[in-house]
């Protein structure tokens, strides 16, 4: 595609132009087709190195990036830091200097503090891919969600999705709703008033009950993971009450079937909290498709970004 500005980093969704989004999403399709071959690997990134830098444990996301990089023949180094980077004496910039010395071409970074990928990107020639920072952004999750939604709704413009749960503290909700809005998909949210950012996203409609949601007839329902560790009785009274009010249960599954809605979830799920065992087996669940598309989208992102470490 001509006249797309080369991009070094993928930090958030807000900064992306529509043609760039289309470019990545359309390239992800041929990448996904590679998975059908007996040889799933292509030599595109032979000799390149990808550093998976995770300050927050996340086996799923880091494995997804690792598989994506491996399938493009890149060398992958996994680097998981369990403690905070704010170890006395070493600043973020010191860490970046260490990373520079490793001469990675791509740095995939997950950090509990918002903005860290931005800072790393500014100080390194490597392409930085934000794999989730604080409450801020998780752009590859948003892209894989869009790819998944568009596979089942090819005429996606004007279609509708409802995000359910802790929208306030969710980088997934933030990035996915922003991307869906850019693509012309309507987004609504359902959740307790304590976890819905009031008036901060004018384009998002807010629902107060599942009845309102089903009356709106969304094409997909996106359940967010309830962060059990964030629960201190501050945002809702109990897990049981959350499940009762907002969880996907048998009765709501009947309504889902009636309107033919798809079910999405960024994983990993809390069974019995935001979703029941039965709902996990829902025939229109896209949860495992999301995992597969995650690899394809991440390959397309690695293929798209242009590190400034090239020696040409």
């Amino acid at each position: 595609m001509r006249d797309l500005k080369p991009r070094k980093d993928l930090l958030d969704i807000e900064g992306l132009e529509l043609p760039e989004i289309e470019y990545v999403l359309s390239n992800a399709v041929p990448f996904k087709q590679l998975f059908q071959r007996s040889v799933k690997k292509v030599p595109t990134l032979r000799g390149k190195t990808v550093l998976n830098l995770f300050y927050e444990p996340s086996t799923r996301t880091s494995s997804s990036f690792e598989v994506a990089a491996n399938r493009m023949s890149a060398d992958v180094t996994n680097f998981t830091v369990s403690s905070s980077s704010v170890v006395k004496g070493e600043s973020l910039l010191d860490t970046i200097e260490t990373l520079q010395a490793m001469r990675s071409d791509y740095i995939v970074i997950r950090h509990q503090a918002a903005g860290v990928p931005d800072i790393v990107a500014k100080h390194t020639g490597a392409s930085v891919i934000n794999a989730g920072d604080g409450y801020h952004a998780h752009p590859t999750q948003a892209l894989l969600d869009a790819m998944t939604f568009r596979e089942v709704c090819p005429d996606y413009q004007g279609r509708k999705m409802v995000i359910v749960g802790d929208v306030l503290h969710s980088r997934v909700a933030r990035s996915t709703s922003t991307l869906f809005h850019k693509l012309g998909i309507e987004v609504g949210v359902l959740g307790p008033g304590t976890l819905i950012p009031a008036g901060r996203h004018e384009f998002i409609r807010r629902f107060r009950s599942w009845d309102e949601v089903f009356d709106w007839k969304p094409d997909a329902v996106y359940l967010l993971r309830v962060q059990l560790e964030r629960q201190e009785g501050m945002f809702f009274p109990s897990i049981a009450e959350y499940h009762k009010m907002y969880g996907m249960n048998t009765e709501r599954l009947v309504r889902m079937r009636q309107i033919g809605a798809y079910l999405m979830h960024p994983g990993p799920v809390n069974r019995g909290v935001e979703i029941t065992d039965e709902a996990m087996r829902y025939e229109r669940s896209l949860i495992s498709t999301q995992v597969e598309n995650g690899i394809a989208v991440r390959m397309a992102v690695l293929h798209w970004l242009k590190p400034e470490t090239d020696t040409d």
Partner: protein
Amino acid sequence: MSESGDNVREAILSPEEISAGVADLARQIAYRCAGDEVAFVGIYTRGVTLASRVAEALKGQGLHYPLGTLDISLYRDDFDNRGSDLPTLESSDIPFGLDGIRVILFDEVIFTGRTIRAALDGLMDYGRPAKIELAVLVDRGHREIPIQPDYVAKRIGTTRDQYVKVRFREDDGGEEGVFLETPRKVPAA
């Protein structure tokens, strides 16, 4: 002779000559592949068109060869040099097994041979054919690696800095022909 941008453009094959070339390729293939299990694989974009035209021509002779497509972007050796011209990937589609069959790869022009090298790598990730051959509309010379076509419709002599542009009406908004473009020489001071 006409001008296209800063290049001097010269038609070297007319639409009729292209049709004759396609027929010629079909003839050569039918003759040499008689009795074998054969499949065609076209390299995006115009190799696909060439392969389907040749396959169409052979249908008239009762020969039905399956047709696959191959995008070699992911196999190129110049990935680092991509500029603002980002490659849009196409879906490679090879809806048949390659193991043990005779595969004919199609591209519109052979030049340095690097594209074919990438295509061979890509093709072999789909299976292990008994034999792989190469068919091209135009061989313009200047090989950089030891790869040669097996079926050629037209050989033309060129200088290294010239461009050979194949235009197929399916891919190029109705335009049809093969053109030789020569960069305009800046007169010596």
